[in-house]
């Protein structure tokens, strides 16, 4: 298995398999980076409606081809048909949201299911057609790259490359609109038009990927890579290319795994590889990852509780919160019976002085934003200059002895 995997990953598993791998990799990169813009615009699931809305187009294109006396299985023609009905689906979502009181989620769900239902109806019509033969259109549901003809594989690879080139060419306006629509407008970029371009690119990826990944799962390639990339960076440019890498790696590894063993369907395995990358990012990313965030959250809670407990000690009030009591006890600031230790008293006095200084700083500091930026739990020395503190202390008067 490993050997065949390596063989597949190094493009030695056959010409067709190599082309499929190139196609899925390109598609993954293009999908990941395009998906980032849609993800950041919070429109991820519109692409799901668009993807499901491709099905009737595929059916109608097939029927039209047969009616014209041709072979229904011409991939570019089917893709063109799917693009038309996907675009209609997108317009219907927008029309419902604008013209009626229904919210976007209802519009998405309705378009997704009704278009899909219509597609299924057309598929049964095709099955019953006098041409009668197995049209293989079911492959568009879940993708079936194994059955692809050579020219189909070339078509997918080229189309993926074109979409990727377009994403690179248009990345600046799309990044601006995705991260800061107000600013984008102010520099003369039409948000509405850019949104349409984003959706058009997403649609292009959907229709190109239909045969490879299938219309139900293609949306995963638009959503999961950016969701994974978002854990690694707050910078727009970085998220775009990280998402591209995640998508590309998923496509490449997925195609390799699929080629290396029987009964591993390409679309699902690409999505699952992608999900693994997502899960790892969510867990381990250094700043936004869950483990890091939980540790930070814990630290923050401890800081809040410690400060809260110390202030209560300074005011000689009883502490009720069990978690605060446990923390202070653990750090040796109070004894088991709740009475402050020497260290506890000293820290309490310091906390109290800090709190007083912050109070003065807040009331008098000219630039209140500078004060607001801080959570007011840190020692003031870490934030204000020595001169500023001296000024505050002058207003406070001599330190009180009560706290010691």
């Amino acid at each position, binding site marked *: 298995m490993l050997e065949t995997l390596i063989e597949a990953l190094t493009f030695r598993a056959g010409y067709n398999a190599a082309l499929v791998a190139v196609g899925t990799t390109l598609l993954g990169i293009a999908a990941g980076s395009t998906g980032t813009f849609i*993800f950041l615009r*919070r*429109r*991820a*699931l519109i692409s*799901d409606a668009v993807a*499901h809305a491709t099905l009737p187009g595929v059916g109608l294109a097939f029927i039209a081809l047969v009616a014209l006396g041709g072979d229904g299985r011409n991939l570019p023609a089917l893709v063109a048909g799917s693009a038309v009905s996907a675009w209609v689906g997108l317009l219907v979502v927008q029309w*419902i949201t604008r*013209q*009626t*009181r*229904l*919210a976007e*989620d*209802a519009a*998405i*769900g*309705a378009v*997704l*299911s*009704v*278009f*899909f*239902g*219509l597609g*299924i*109806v057309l*598929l*049964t*019509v095709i*099955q*019953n057609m006098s041409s009668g033969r197995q049209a293989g259109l*079911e492959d568009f*549901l*879940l993708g079936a790259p194994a059955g692809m003809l050579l020219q189909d594989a070339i078509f997918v690879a080229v189309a993926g490359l074109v979409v990727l080139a377009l994403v690179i060419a248009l990345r600046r306006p799309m990044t601006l609109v995705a991260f800061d629509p107000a600013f984008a407008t102010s520099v003369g970029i039409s948000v509405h038009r850019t949104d349409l371009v984003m959706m058009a690119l997403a649609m292009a990826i959907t229709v190109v990927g239909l045969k490879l990944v299938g219309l*139900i*799962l293609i*949306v*995963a390639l638009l*959503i*999961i890579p*950016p*969701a994974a990339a*978002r*854990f690694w960076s707050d910078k727009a440019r970085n998220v775009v290319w990280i998402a591209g890498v995640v998508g590309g790696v998923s496509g490449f590894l997925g195609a390799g795994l699929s080629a290396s063993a029987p*009964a*591993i*369907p390409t*679309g*699902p*395995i690409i*999505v*699952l590889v*992608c*999900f693994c990358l*997502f899960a790892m990012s*969510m867990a381990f990313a250094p700043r*936004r990852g*869950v483990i890091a*965030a939980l540790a930070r959250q814990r630290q923050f809670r401890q800081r809040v509780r410690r400060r809260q407990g110390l202030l209560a000690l300074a005011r000689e009030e009883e502490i009720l919160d069990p978690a605060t009591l446990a923390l202070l006890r653990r750090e040796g600031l109070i004894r088991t019976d709740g009475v402050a230790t020497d260290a506890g008293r000293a820290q309490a006095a310091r906390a109290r002085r800090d709190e007083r200084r912050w109070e003065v700083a807040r009331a008098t500091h000219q630039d209140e934003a500078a004060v607001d930026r801080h959570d007011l739990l840190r020692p003031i020395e870490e934030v204000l200059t020595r001169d500023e503190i001296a000024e505050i202390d002058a207003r406070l008067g001599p330190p009180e002895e009560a706290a010691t």
Partner: protein
Amino acid sequence: MSGAEFIQISLAPLVIGVLSAIACALPGNFLILRRQALIGDAISHVVLPGIVVGFLVSGAVSTWPMMIGAAGAAIVAVVLIETVRRVGRIESGAAMGVVFTSMFAFGVLLLEQSDTSGVHLDVEHALYGNLESLIWLDGTGWAALLDPAALAGLPAELPRIAFVAAAIALLTLVFWRPLKLSTFDEGYARTVGLPTSLIGFTLVVVAAIAAVAAFDAVGSIIVIAMFICPPAAARLMTDRLERQVLWSVVFAALSAVSGYVLAGYGPLWLGGEHAISAAGMIAVTAGVIMALACLFGPHRKASGQRS
């Protein structure tokens, strides 16, 4: 078509279709008002992996393990979505997209890996159902409706969906007030002592059960049409929740009946020979009804939107 033929071939699918549509439309009303319509989307996609796991664990295509598997998958999906949304701080639409596509992919992979050849469990069936196959061989005439022996031969799906639909209707009726209150104003509902998180979770579980029970008949994706289209159309007909729910039931039944009839007889009227997918046609008629409501519904515009 004679009466006997109608009863044998069409009665059971019709009733199953209508009951499925109603069972889904009832919770759908509240999902739409809570802006959670796409939870229906997510749930219906994860039914497939749930059924496959249920099948693999039990080793047979028997109903209950697969139903339990599907309901379990729906709950797992909801928990995962919430985890990704809250812990990963990812917007809910994208969180749903991540979870349900991955679970669906897992289901397909599992299905391909396991040896299900010779067993009636294929992806297409799971996706768009098999309403037409639910025939009642013993229903040889109207008299069969009173004949216990013949009734025992009804497709097992029928009593199941009847039970689920009745249970959902009853739950909706009994918990009407808390549902309405917590859907309208969750914070306030909590201050009068309602367990709002539990209510929200139960609503999703009920929707999942409806989806699983309807799944046999119409497949996992068309279930979404039943969750969303009848309630969405109903929302445009009235400004009273009570009436909205009644409208949604009417629309659900109407789309099921007209969809089934059009699929079964429409092609014949047009000179064709073969019926087309009933489940797909039900989604289409539900969509047509919704489109008409969008164009002509008396309350189609929001108060601030009227022109």
